[in-house]
């Protein structure tokens, strides 16, 4: 059996009594784009720093091609990294910045020149060799930092929120660049972000961090359609939650009852959902249908409309249940209910049981 390309095995990091990450394990394929997604303090950056060698784990191991990385100091790990802050060497030109990792490796001059030209063209900054970092925009500086990290052909490239200091438009532009560079070079990328949209846009797979542990690892569509915890459901995409009580659980499906007595059955459960538990039913806003009549074939509850916002291709509707949970509903343009819809209208929301989720709380 061949060992996986990169394996993180039972990583734990503890500062005094505070556990920063615990039980973090995953395997990463060569050439994969893996994103660590989570809010600040969730342990995603700590995991990346351990990979970089800036911190030692309390427990666990990191294996690259089956060999541990932990006994190799940072500067010999041959890992590339792009930081959140601008880290170009201020006293060196762009060309010398990119050449730096090759110079410390004592590569021949001709090879350095060739390599610098190649990676600068990769990030579309040909001809910027003599520019000083102070005379460049933030986006350009991060592209140079990317070129510098790629100059020595590292097997793994770490990126720690590299775009968080840039404005939205520039961020999207560089996201495209990163995707293109990932495709062109085939480098394995571990990317840290707190921006779920950025994660979905870039990644092959996403590991969702919450409070120091990984809640779920999967592709974007997997996480969106089948989140395994309430946190993942809440963090990725928009979601509606309705309070309810579990009446019965069978084969991973639950029957529930809402506060107004309406019931719904056959809803997929995640985690250890127990009969009698107070919990929440999760739905994606675009999976909810609004109708004048209850739908006997599907789950259905009465609601009161509290807000209607027309946004062109979509109409965003806010609906309130009898027990005061607010639901966001997204109706496509031309939906039969949109016409004449206004605040205070009483309608029904309908959904198929199999697109809803119930999580252990």
């Amino acid at each position: 059996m061949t060992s996986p390309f990169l394996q993180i095995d039972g990583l734990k990091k503890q500062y005094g009594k505070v556990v920063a990450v615990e039980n973090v394990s995953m395997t990463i394929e060569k050439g994969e784009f893996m994103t660590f997604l989570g809010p600040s303090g969730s342990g995603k950056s700590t995991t990346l720093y351990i990979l970089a060698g800036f911190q030692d784990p309390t427990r666990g191991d990191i294996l690259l091609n089956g060999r541990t990385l932990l006994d190799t100091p940072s500067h010999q790990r041959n890992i590339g990294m792009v930081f959140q802050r601008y880290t170009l060497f201020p006293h060196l030109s762009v060309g010398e910045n990119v050449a730096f990792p090759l110079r410390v490796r004592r590569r021949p001059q001709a090879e350095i020149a060739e390599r610098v030209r190649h990676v600068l063209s990769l990030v579309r900054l040909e001809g910027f060799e003599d520019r000083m970092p102070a005379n460049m925009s933030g986006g350009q500086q991060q592209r140079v930092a990317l070129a510098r990290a790629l100059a020595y052909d590292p097997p793994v490239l770490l990126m720690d929120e590299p775009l968080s200091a840039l404005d939205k438009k520039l961020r999207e532009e560089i996201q495209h660049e990163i995707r293109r560079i990932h495709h062109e070079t085939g480098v394995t990328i571990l990317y840290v972000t707190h921006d779920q949209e950025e994660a979905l846009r870039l990644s092959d797979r996403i590991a969702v961090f919450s409070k120091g542990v990984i809640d779920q690892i999967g592709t974007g569509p997997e996480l969106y359609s089948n989140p395994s915890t309430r946190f993942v459901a809440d963090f990725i995409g928009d979601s509606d939650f309705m309070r309810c009580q579990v009446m019965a659980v069978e084969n991973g499906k639950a029957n529930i009852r809402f506060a107004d007595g309406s019931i719904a059955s056959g809803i997929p459960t995640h985690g250890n959902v127990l009969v009698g538990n107070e919990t929440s039913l999760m739905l994606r806003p675009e999976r909810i249908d609004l109708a004048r009549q209850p739908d006997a074939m599907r789950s259905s509850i009465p609601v009161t409309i509290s807000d209607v916002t027309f946004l062109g291709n979509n109409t965003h509707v806010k609906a309130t249940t009898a027990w005061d949970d607010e639901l966001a509903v997204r109706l496509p343009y031309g939906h039969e209910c949109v016409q004449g819809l206004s605040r205070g209208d009483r309608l029904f929301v309908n959904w198929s049981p199999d697109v809803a989720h119930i999580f252990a709380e």
Partner: protein
Amino acid sequence: MLLSYQRLGSWKWVLNGIAVLTGVFLLVPILFIVALSFGSSRWLIFPPPDWTLKWYEELFADPRWLESMLTSAKIASIVTVLSLIFGLLASIALTKGTFRGREVLRAFFLTPMVLPLVVLAVALYALFLELGLNGTLTGFVIAHLIVALPFSIITISNALESFDQSIEDAAVLCGASPWEARFRVTLPSIQHGLFSAAIFSFLISWDEVVLAIFMASPTLQTLPVKIWGTLRQDLTPVIASASTLLIAFTVALMVLVAFIRKGKKS
């Protein structure tokens, strides 16, 4: 802005007037001494009846003046080197260290700035009597190092504080060993701070007179001490020319600092 220069109206002229007066107040004594050094009057009459270079000739003809200049330069150079080394090490500890009492130590390092020089001079004199350091080059260097170090620490600490640690981390991940990263990335990145610290340290020692008077012996005198000593014996325009040289050298160094600052900004 509340205090916009453009909106001051006629107050602008008052402000300009004060600025000009301040400049004159600061510059006149210096211009005065420079003019006198080229004046022909033995009795320092102003305005000078005629112009001459003979005081400079006299200055350069006297080996004791040259010797004191050399002594000053020697002491200031050693002080500069030591002040840079100690200042850099102390600044690294103060900015990167995480030990207890760091703020207390920072305040302690800066006390020579606020301590009256005379007090320091008397204390050092008493101590050096015990150690036999009065009138020695070592004594001079230690005394001047004490007053130069706070300036060096402030300047280098500021430079280090504005230097992002991630830049050094980036150099390490690029394959540079931690020491290589410090020498090839961190030190060059704070070179403006190091230059400023060096020039300030040099000037502090070069200009210093209070400590120097206590440390000096008849055979070992700095230029300011020589000027002071000569002044007490007889008022000769040679003092004016020695002062002018002192000023010229100081101004040259300040101009250099200004150029370095400007280079940093662009």
